[in-house]
């Protein structure tokens, strides 16, 4: 639970940092969303039995919806689906089962 709150806090700060601070720089227009990158990496390297990545992805999507002009739920659904797809891919193709 602690991990979820910390991650949500980081995502919140990353989104505000990107939309308020980095918006003044030219690199802002070429920079992908730091929050989405964070969520993707979190889901990629999360243990298979944990599902925190999905919750964090949902929260990240929610904050992106808040600070973007998109309708509420747009990024939430996209990130939840993306998180799910990542988990499936990791489990099917990348996860190494421990040998018995």
């Amino acid at each position, binding site marked *: 639970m602690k991990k979820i709150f910390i991650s949500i806090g980081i995502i919140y700060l990353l989104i505000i940092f990107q939309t308020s601070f980095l918006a003044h720089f030219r690199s802002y227009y070429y920079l992908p969303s730091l929050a989405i990158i964070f969520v993707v990496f979190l889901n990629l390297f999360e243990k298979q039995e944990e599902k925190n990545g999905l919750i964090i992805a949902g929260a990240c999507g929610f904050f992106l*919806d808040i*600070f973007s002009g998109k*309708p509420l739920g747009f990024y939430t*659904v996209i990130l939840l689906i993306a998180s799910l797809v990542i988990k499936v891919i990791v489990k099917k193709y990348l996860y190494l089962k421990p040998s018995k």
Partner: protein
Amino acid sequence: MNKLGNPKKLKTIFLLILAGVIILTINYTSLGSKTKDLFLTASAPLQTLFWQQGQGLSHFIDKLKGISFLEGENSYLKLENQRLKAELANLLELKNENQELRKALDIGLEKEFEVTTANVISKDPFQDVIVIDKGSNDGISVNFPVISPQKNLIGRVEESFASFSRVILTSNKRSSISAKISDQEETIGVVNGESNLKLVFDLVLQDNKIEKGSLVLTTSLGNIFPKGLLIGEIKSINYSDVKPFQTAQIDSGLDLNKLNSVFIITNLR
């Protein structure tokens, strides 16, 4: 089914997706805008802080980037400034020349003589010589009289080069001009240069009366200068019974510092 995990986990996943769909749905009600408003209000102080810091840093970086541009712009502006100064100086010179020409037209110089304007490019008051920027290419020849815009005699061309000429002033020791006192046709003499802008009216007969303040004009004797050009004004008279002639000091009124342009009489009308 087992590949994705147990049914409990699947249930969680579907619940999350369902939550997303619900959020998307409530977006079309007033609740969506209220939620956004709540979060944005709460985040406003932090966003303001980040915004101000970002703005400050961005301006600082822009200034750093601008230094090299400013250096280039500065050197360009310096060159431009120099060019404009030169242009201004040229315009002022033309203005002065224009004024001189207007003065000359006012006194009807062009009616009496055919004149060419020239600028003084060099002065040597110790040798009573000036150099002007017109020469043989402009039709200037040796012995052409040189006058001021006020019709005062300045001197004559001593040597003419292709594009400039050397003029000896009336006060030059090599200068000797036949002259007379204004309104006294009989009082004639010779004005000799004594260097250092000094002139002396010499060879005036003792019988002729010279008065202080009288104007000394050129005569047509010698066939160099046209008659009636003002040489100067009698400043002091040296009268001596033992000498056959009387002499007088002449003030030419010539101010070399103000002499920037002159007229060369190329032909009498």
